[in-house]
């Protein structure tokens, strides 16, 4: 979990000015799972990704992937010699090649490959498209081909620059399950640039938070979501993400019981078997607090929790909770009014009941690692 094996990590540090923009970003990402570069438009996240790929060069750059130095004071490995897969914001397919031609462009002609055409075609549902010209594809299909093309180049790291942002919501919903799948079935580290919090919550394991060309914070997504000092909590749609294991399934009501550290949640879900993994999101404004267990409530999820800390935010109070009694419980953030905080006499260390009004299921595949 906490990639101590420094060898497979991704080290990135880029500093320099690009026109009037000053970039000074450094972070270390684990060699597994999805790392999201998240921040507002123009914060430099795409530039960082281009630097990682070698498409752009800044004055002072350090880039080390899996123990190999791609860039330092003396080295600069050109883009075509870096084993990356890059998915651009626009699919950017080669117009003069068919879908198959596009997919095979970067595939090694000989030697061993970890991903082959059949696998990619199956994973991304491309079998019907192979003979077509890119001009005859829908936006979502194009982006799927672009992802497949990047994968077939046998990358050691997949770089994705807002691959969904040019698509409409329906098309996004069509592609997201493929990304979940990808995540679940390939052990390929992904650096994913996005300014969409919902996307990041669904896909990322690690978060690199950027602002004005700098890295504000980086670490496991769930830690950053529950760090009251970071701007994530201040966002109106602030939330936490929890990964859990299905304990039981109530087919009559379409509900599952999901075990998470320190408690268990009841969630609306389709078919599920005990032992399946599920990822859910709980918005901070969907969590309220009570001193005593409310009797006869319509709210399904009322969980014992302990207040870890609290941070005033305007008229509101952001409260960090730990589920159950042990400190290892899953973190939850509740947004309550300052008045409630005072009237209930709440304080850090106190045991309370968290009432969760809404839980949304994020993915079906779940994370790649336990």
């Amino acid at each position, binding site marked *: 979990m906490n990639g101590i094996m420094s060898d497979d990590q991704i080290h990135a540090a880029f500093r320099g000015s690009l026109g009037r923009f000053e970039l000074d970003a450094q972070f270390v990402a684990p060699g597994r799972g999805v790392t999201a570069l998240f921040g507002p438009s123009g914060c430099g996240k795409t530039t960082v990704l281009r630097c990682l790929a070698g*498409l752009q060069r800044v004055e002072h750059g350090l880039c080390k992937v899996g123990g190999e130095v791609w860039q330092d004071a003396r080295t600069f490995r050109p*883009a*075509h010699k870096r084993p990356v*897969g890059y998915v*651009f914001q626009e699919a950017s397919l*080669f117009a003069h090649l068919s879908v198959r031609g596009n997919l095979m*462009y*970067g595939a090694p002609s000989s030697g061993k490959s970890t991903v082959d055409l059949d696998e990619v075609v199956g994973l991304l549902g491309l079998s019907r498209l192979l003979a077509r010209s890119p001009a005859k594809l829908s936006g979502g299909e194009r982006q799927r081909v672009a992802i497949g093309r*990047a994968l077939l*180049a046998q990358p050691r790291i997949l770089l994705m620059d807002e691959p969904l942002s040019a698509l409409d919501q329906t098309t996004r919903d069509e592609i997201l399950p493929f990304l979940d799948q990808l995540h679940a079935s390939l052990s390929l580290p992904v650096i994913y640039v996005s300014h969409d919090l919902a996307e990041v919550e669904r896909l990322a394991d690690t978060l690199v938070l950027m602002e004005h060309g700098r890295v504000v914070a980086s670490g496991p997504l769930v830690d950053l979501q529950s760090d009251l000092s970071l701007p994530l909590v201040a966002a109106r749609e602030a939330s936490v993400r929890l990964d859990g294991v299905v304990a039981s399934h109530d087919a009559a009501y379409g509900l599952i019981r999901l075990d998470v550290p320190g408690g268990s949640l009841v969630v609306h879900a389709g078919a599920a078997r005990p032992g399946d993994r599920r990822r859910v999101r709980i918005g901070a404004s969907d969590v309220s607090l009570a001193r005593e267990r409310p009797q006869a409530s319509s709210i399904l999820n009322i969980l014992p929790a302990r207040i870890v800390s609290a941070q005033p935010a305007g008229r509101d109070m952001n409260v960090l909770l730990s589920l159950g009694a042990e400190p290892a419980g899953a973190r939850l953030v509740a947004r309550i009014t300052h008045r409630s905080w005072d009237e209930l006499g709440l304080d850090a260390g106190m045991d309370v009941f968290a009432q969760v009004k809404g839980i949304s299921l994020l993915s079906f595949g779940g994370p790649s690692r336990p």
Partner: protein
Amino acid sequence: MPNLPADVWIAVRLTIELAALTTLILLIVGTPLAWWLARSKAWWKEGVATIVALPIVLPPTVLGFYLLVALGPQGPGGQLASLWGGRTLAFTFAGLVIGSVLYSMPFVVQPIRNAFEAMGERPMEVAATLRASPMRAFWTVAVPLARPGFLTGAVLGFAHTVGEFGVVLMIGGNIPGQTKVLSVAIFDYVETSQWREASILAGGMVVFAFTVILAMTLIEKRVGRVGS
């Protein structure tokens, strides 16, 4: 076939040879030049582009005059010719080729440059992230994507060379089988009042020009992306 004197057919053949050779040389020389003009960030590249474009504006006699000086016995062309025992490149087929290459260059370089620019940086970046060396990316991505520009450039270069007159007259003169191309032949017939021959050749040129432009328009329409 109209009954024309043999020297007309010699002129036709010479014209086609000159135009084909010129087009070939221009594709070989013009492609890297067009690529450089499309990609370079050098501040002086527009200066180079302007020099390439000069023949569009200059009277052919001006270009012809400088070429005559350069290719003549005192110029670099004469020194070059002395390598194989010649005295001058003026009034030779080789001289004509050099003149045509310079004269038709903008018509080949410009469409190819435009096509390379219209393509943008992205396809080459994509190719690089798919492990293609710059050379492989150039041949497998840039050139195929710029194909309409190449077609336009080649057709324009060929047609323009067929139609040149002023430069040929200045540096080529009127030597049958060596420098007497079609446009000069027409001029000759008019001079000597052979109106029938002149009108057949002139009419043939009109048909040729019409066919070329129509074919080019159709090709561009079919390919969809226009290079110029």
